């Protein structure tokens, strides 16, 4: 025969175990939102529909820095779930660790940028990792204008910024605030150096 106190404990756990789990996850999400800028919409804290700062409204802006200018770049994501996951983590929970983990995906690669505006399905001033550029270059013959539009470049640094939206009624103003940024200086081989 089972011990009555053991039975009682089991009954309490059955009745309250899952609700307690909900409380623990929700409280941890409160803490994350306060310390790590996680969007209240996500993470199991039930903060959806409380703020305009939803993940789809956040911007993860990625830049290549050159000596006299900087240009935004877009990573090739496609169906690469691993990269998509890292990218989503970088803007939903924009800690240095998650941002660095995402930017490390672009270490030691060759960068390509367009040198002219788009007349051939290439966007104006676009920069991209080699894997992305290859898909475009492979479609064209060397010497064609399309091929020549993309040139390898050597940036001095890469930078990622995460922005969120706020909205103020009364003055009807939508604002963007930078939550955080991370930057790596590149050496000759494209490796990241700590600043």
């Amino acid at each position, binding site marked *: 025969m089972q011990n009555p106190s053991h039975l009682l404990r089991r009954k309490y756990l059955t009745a309250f175990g899952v609700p307690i*789990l909900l409380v623990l996850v929700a409280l941890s999400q409160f803490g994350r939102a306060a310390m790590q800028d996680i969007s209240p919409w996500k993470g199991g804290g039930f903060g959806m529909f409380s703020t305009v700062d939803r993940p789809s409204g956040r911007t993860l802006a990625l830049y290549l820095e050159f000596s006299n200018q900087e240009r935004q770049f877009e990573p090739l994501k496609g169906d690469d779930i691993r990269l998509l996951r890292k990218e989503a983590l970088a803007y939903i929970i924009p800690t240095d660790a998650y941002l660095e983990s995402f930017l490390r995906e672009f270490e030691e690669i060759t960068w390509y940028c367009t040198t002219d505006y788009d007349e051939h399905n290439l966007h104006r001033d676009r920069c991209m990792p080699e894997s992305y550029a290859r898909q475009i270059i492979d479609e064209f013959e060397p010497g064609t204008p399309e091929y020549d539009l993309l040139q390898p470049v050597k940036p001095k640094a890469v930078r990622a910024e995460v922005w969120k939206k706020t909205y103020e009624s009364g003055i009807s103003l939508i604002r963007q605030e930078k939550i955080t940024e991370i930057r790596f200086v590149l050496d000759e081989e494209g490796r990241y150096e700590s600043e």
Partner: protein
Amino acid sequence: MNLSETLGRLKDYGAGIRPLDISLVMTFILLMVYAENVFYVRPATQVLAGLGLVFYPWIGRSPWLWLAITAVLAWGHGVFWFSIDNHKYLMNYWTLAVSICLFYRKPSAFLAVNGRLLIGLCFLFATVWKAVTIEFVNGSFFEYLLIGGDVRFEDFSILLTGISPEVLEQNRELLQSVKSNPALTETALEVPPRVSVIALLLTWWTLIVEGLIAVLFLWPNPGKTRIVRDLVLGAFIISTYPVASVIGFAWLLVSMGTAQITRRSSVMKLFYIALFIVLTFFSPSAQFMFGRLIDLITL
């Protein structure tokens, strides 16, 4: 047999069905329709839930089946824990609670407590988040939704505030330009005068009704007033989810709400079943038809 006899028989038949069984069948349907749409979650969830539904109660009431569903959902949700919607968490809590409760010979009472507390806590946290967010309390959040911040609210906004589709379109384009250009740190949106008042009304309606649901469902012994919590939950679901178009969340709340009603309450069983069916008409495809109707009216 006259009408009162027929109704009496229906009532007797209804009283014989356990809320737990209705709730589990609803949850199976929910899982089949609204499981996370990724290849390693949806097919497995649909097969397991389908088995449970077709072979109910023999397989459908097996705690092992529910544990398997919980494991598949937890795996799928776990990979993207930071980006899934909150009701996916709740769905996982609910299937886990069902699994645990079904290990008992008389699971109804345990499941009723779990259903009640999960609803109450979910609304408690939702209310706290809204109450501590200035952007919500001062009406900014709803104003933003009504002027083009969320495409799901556009038909509702046109009906309620009289905002024109052109203004919505213009605001949407401005919002897109802000998003694609971080250097553009601020821009003004067009807000017709009625929008601010309606945004404030929606703000306070949401705060009051969500807070009330939290209190009513967390209150342990409501006595004769227990019907009030079901009615308030029903009012919230009908006034919110068809507009917000999160029918999966609404079905989940209805499934959990059904589990916590008393066995004798045939009326409340019918109430929750009716809610479940009515919500079907607000699915995205039905919303599409509603949108076309608005277009015809506003032409």
